[in-house]
């Protein structure tokens, strides 16, 4: 397992420490803290009925944000349903992320300059599509990568194998992330597969694979940076397994983790917390303080408050909006139904 920072925030792998400025190092922390607050607030908002679908992210910040931090703006992101933070840091406005949660199509409309599709609900679908985006980039002569994520459970889907195999066959510049948070809803990874690691699945596709400490933001960043360089140099795709953990339930729709997870396991993983470990590291370099952290927390809370307000004010999605989005031009049936539903909606 590739690691740079251990659980005490000490460097254990001097030669792979990424070359980041103090400002960049702090920015990584800022993003992780912000995202933890966003997760807590999203859970609360969900409980109040002010959000729709929500998949908790606490525990996975290093994996999600360390990888995203290594990307360029022109890289193309194909996230899974839990990967909203990466999209936000690539530039999706927060209020749109909230609209996505509510099932409003405006939440799926990427603003100009954000090269991404909205989070995929069908597990594995994004993997094959990433191979296509990457091949397209190669054909266009772009120096960019397609980046996609799935979970440990997602590696069982046929699409996972097809995606890595296709990208390998075309030497397409794709980076495939497996965020191994140990559970696919209730099923532990040991019951998901008999493979010792998920990274080793790369071997069958003839591509590079690496297992990374997913609670170590520097390691995830360094591995992604490396994969990115290889890919744009024409050396082909890479599969990166990050060993991580989700503290919360699978989603907010009635999952009860106490049915399948023990408190011991939770405690074991909380000891590896990516924020705690990285905070220790930054503090040892005099780059972080409680004061600084509180500033980030306050700012996050304020921005979240504003964003939810903005989402509330955005016009509600109507059935006629859906109709307008189905085809470039309305066929006869939708033309008729458009009139009918306009009337229904005006009541």
């Amino acid at each position, binding site marked *: 397992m590739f690691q740079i920072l251990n659980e005490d925030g000490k460097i254990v792998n001097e030669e792979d420490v990424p070359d980041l400025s103090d400002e960049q190092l702090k920015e990584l922390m800022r993003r992780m803290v912000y995202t933890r607050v966003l997760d807590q607030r999203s859970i609360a908002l969900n409980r109040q009925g002010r959000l*729709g*679908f929500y998949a908790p992210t606490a525990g996975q910040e290093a994996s999600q944000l360390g990888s995203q931090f290594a990307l360029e703006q022109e890289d193309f992101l194909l996230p899974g*349903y839990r990967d909203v933070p990466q999209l936000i840091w690539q530039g999706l406005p927060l209020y749109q992320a909230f609209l996505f949660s*509510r*099932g*409003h199509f405006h939440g799926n409309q990427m603003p100009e300059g954000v090269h991404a599709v909205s989070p995929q*609900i*069908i*597990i594995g679908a994004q993997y094959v599509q990433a191979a296509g985006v990457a091949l397209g980039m190669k054909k266009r002569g772009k120096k960019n990568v397609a980046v996609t994520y799935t979970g440990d*459970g*997602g590696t*069982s*889907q*046929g699409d996972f194998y097809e995606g890595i195999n296709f990208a390998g066959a075309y030497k397409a510049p794709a980076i495939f992330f497996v965020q191994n948070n140990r559970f*696919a*809803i*209730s*099923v532990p990874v040991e*019951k*998901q*597969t008999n493979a010792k690691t998920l990274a080793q699945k790369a071997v069958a596709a003839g591509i590079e694979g690496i297992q990374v400490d997913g609670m170590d933001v520097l390691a995830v960043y360094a591995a992604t940076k490396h994969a990115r360089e290889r890919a744009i140099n024409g050396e082909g795709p890479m599969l990166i397994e990050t060993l991580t953990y989700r503290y919360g339930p699978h989603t907010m*729709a*009635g*999952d009860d983790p106490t*049915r*399948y997870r023990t408190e011991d396991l939770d405690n074991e993983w909380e000891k590896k917390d990516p924020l705690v470990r990285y905070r220790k590291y930054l503090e040892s370099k005099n780059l972080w303080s409680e004061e600084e952290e509180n500033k980030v927390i306050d700012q996050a809370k304020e921005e979240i408050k504003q964003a939810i307000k903005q989402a509330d004010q955005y016009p*509600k*999605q*109507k*059935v006629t*909006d*859906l*109709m307008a*989005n*189905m085809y470039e031009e309305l066929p006869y*049936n*939708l033309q008729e*139904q458009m009139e*009918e*539903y306009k009337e*229904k*909606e005006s009541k």
Partner: protein
Amino acid sequence: MAQMTMIQAITDALRTELKNDENVLVFGEDVGKNGGVFRATEGLQAEFGEERVFDTPLAESGIGGLAIGLGLQGFRPVPEIQFFGFIYEVMDSISGQMARMRYRSGGVHHSPITVRAPFGGGVHTPELHADSLEGLVAQQPGLKVVIPSTPYDAKGLLIASIRDNDPVIFLEHMKLYRSFRGEVPEEEYTIELGKADVKREGTDVTLIAYGAMVHACLKAADELAENGINAEVIDLRTVSPLDIETIIESVKKTNRVVVVQEAQRQAGVAANVVAEIQERAILHLEAPVLRVTAPDTVYAFSEAEEVWLPNHKDIVEKVNSVMNF
């Protein structure tokens, strides 16, 4: 008699058949320890062990293929597809393989499989969780497609499905899982597949539906009764193959029909029902057969869901137009 929700009736049916026949196997994503994301398989692994009730890796096509193979070894697989919206992932196993096993082996092999899946709207699920895709499977010869609307029917139909030697797609409307209780006998019983049920007798118009829309029809019928219109409500229960006899008998009696489905207008079962009626009973009709359906868009997850889903008011409106034709 016990009062059960539909989900309890389903668990009860699974338990009954696991007890009755050691060849019955229940499997799928999260069905074991977790008891299914809706708890339909709650307690079954504890009772029957991991050999009989087990979690699978996360791959619907794998689940479908596994079921076919187990069927070839004489088991009676009852796989669960976690949400019917994921049916596309296993479509080849279902339509391309299970449905054709008897035909292509000349009757030597069959697929005694019951694929269970929750579907249906109104419970605010994300994309591709609520879609009514029964039309896709109903269109495939070789499959039986069963959709219960009450706890009583759910138990009897599920036991019959598991005992059936042909592949059955058994669809459970999520909104009906816990919305009400009904009387369900504790002992085992079956309800014949392919038989519709007249849920309410009437003389003026026939409402044909299945799943959650049966309840919308019953509500509409109550409202219509206040205005002196006596509606008959037929619950198809099996949407493929159709119970033509019950349908045509009712048409001959009422001479007016509205077919109701939650699926989009261009999708599914209603169009076939209308076609069968006009081929077999056109001279008994006093008005065109009309449909109440969702509009032809993708499922309106979340905000617009309530307007998108057909309801009893839409049914009343359509009935009024066939009455006044």
